[in-house]
């Protein structure tokens, strides 16, 4: 066990070092501003502006979390505080199944169901037209994909709240809903944040389903109904092609490094928060 742990830590560092090593050439050749604040991505002209990709990644992720978190919170509250034991026994495996569905299936579902929904209903409702391949579409698909992980963490968090604490609130005449709102959610707040962060870090890294529905147009998306081009899609679509272009490979490695660091940081933060909760409860 110990050996395996060290092995995975070593692997993590090896990947990190590899990515940094491969990113060095482009960092040397191109100015910081031209990499991170430029919207021009023209590899043949040696222009590698990563901004559209970074913004798209953040945008899709945030849309996904904004859609997902309220639904997950309500679901978790219902399951842990209101639902019958039989409902929980029935729903829990379903959530696990959702977690196990391959990404590509979500992508196809996105193309068949969500793209037309956005194209035919949501965009017209806001008075615009759209191909349906948008940030919003990616966000909706992604929100369903991060559902299971967020719900799982939330259920565990709610599980740790002592029955007697709820009773303390009920015993002064609070209703169940008041108890949920004023006591349980407050007590669970750090855990809720950690669930959100975990969902975020999962969402950042998700590739296939998103790239199938998000449009892959290199531009800075302003409205959620604009198309976008997340970092993961950039890497997946282009790595291995056009590698003869100088620095192209290095630019993609830099993009990977950015993604890797973002995910690492978010994972680290959520772990810290979870540890804190566990310590407080013990």
């Amino acid at each position, binding site marked *: 066990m110990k050996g395996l742990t060290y092995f995975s830590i070593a692997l993590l560092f090896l990947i990190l070092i590899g990515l940094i090593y491969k990113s060095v050439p482009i960092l040397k050749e191109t100015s910081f501003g031209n990499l991170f604040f430029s919207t021009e991505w023209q590899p043949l002209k040696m222009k590698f502006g990563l901004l559209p990709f970074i913004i798209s990644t953040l945008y899709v992720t945030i849309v996904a979390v904004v859609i997902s978190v309220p639904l997950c919170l309500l679901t978790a509250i219902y399951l842990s505080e209101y639902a*019958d*034991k039989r409902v929980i026994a029935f729903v829990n495996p379903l959530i696990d199944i959702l977690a196990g569905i391959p990404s590509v299936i979500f992508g196809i579902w996105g193309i068949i169901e969500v793209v037309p929904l956005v194209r035919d209903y949501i965009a017209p409702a806001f008075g615009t037209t759209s191909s349906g391949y948008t940030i919003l579409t990616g966000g909706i698909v992604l929100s369903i994909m991060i559902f299971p992980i967020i719900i799982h963490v939330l259920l565990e968090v709610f599980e740790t709240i*002592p029955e*007697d*604490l*709820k*009773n*303390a*609130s*009920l*015993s*002064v*005449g*609070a*209703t*169940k809903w*008041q108890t949920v709102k*004023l*006591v349980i959610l*407050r*007590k669970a707040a750090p855990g809720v944040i950690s669930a959100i962060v975990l969902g975020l870090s999962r969402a950042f890294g998700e590739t296939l389903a998103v790239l199938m529905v998000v449009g892959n147009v290199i531009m800075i998306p302003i409205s959620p109904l604009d198309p976008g081009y997340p970092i993961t899609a950039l890497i997946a679509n282009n790595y291995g092609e056009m590698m003869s272009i100088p620095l192209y490979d290095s630019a993609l490695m830099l993009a990977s490094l950015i993604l890797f660091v973002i995910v690492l940081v978010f994972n680290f933060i959520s772990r810290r928060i979870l540890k804190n909760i566990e310590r407080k409860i013990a």
Partner: protein
Amino acid sequence: MKKETEILVPLMTEVCDEGNICVEGLNVYYGDRQALKDINITLPAKKITAIIGPSGCGKTTLLKCFNRLIDSIDGTKVTGKVMLNGEDIFDPHADVIKIRKKMGLLSQRPYPLPMSIYDNVAYGPRIHGIRKKSELNQIVEYYLREASLWDEVMDRLNTPASGLSIGQQQRLCLARGLAVKPEIILGDEPTSALDPISSAHIEKKFVEFKNKYTIVMVTHILRQAIRIADYIIFMYLGEIIEHGPAHQVLDNPKDKRTSDYIKGIIS
């Protein structure tokens, strides 16, 4: 130690006097297991009643029936009546909120709500519609004084309640319960997690409160029952074996199981 006051308890009569808690034919099941078996008892108003008995005999269950916290446990079944001021607590049309408001609860370990000291005491009143800051200030101070906590916390009312010592937390929970003006205080081994001084604090409060509140307290500490109880109920395996004025049950138990328990043979 002996108390001279004889208490007139209307045992098993048709009438349930104002303030008394009259339990009639109460049965409680957790799934298939019966935790309370045909409980019939009247708990006298404005007295301290101690419920004693070995672990698992149903003391907590009985308390949870009084404020209907038993409702929130999955798979329970309750039959029988608990009458209070002419109303059956288990009447399907009974207002659970109103019932719970009438009863303050102290649990085995203090559970301050995850908010400030002030907000803990103001929690109940706010829920029941009091919004005015000046009124809340008054309530908070009054009940913190009632629980003898005011002097210790007056300069840090807005700090988290979790920063208090366990003994202080339990007094805070007392103040929180009192702030909704209950008639009854239910204590489930309220001193078992506390140090001797904090325990003495709570005991002293209970004795002081006797004329204002009906107090029902579960305890594992016989000496505590001797010190403060007027009336004692001894339970065993989900049944009430014996009950009566404290000195009678403790000094002249009629049932062998009671005397065995008091002697420490069953515990």
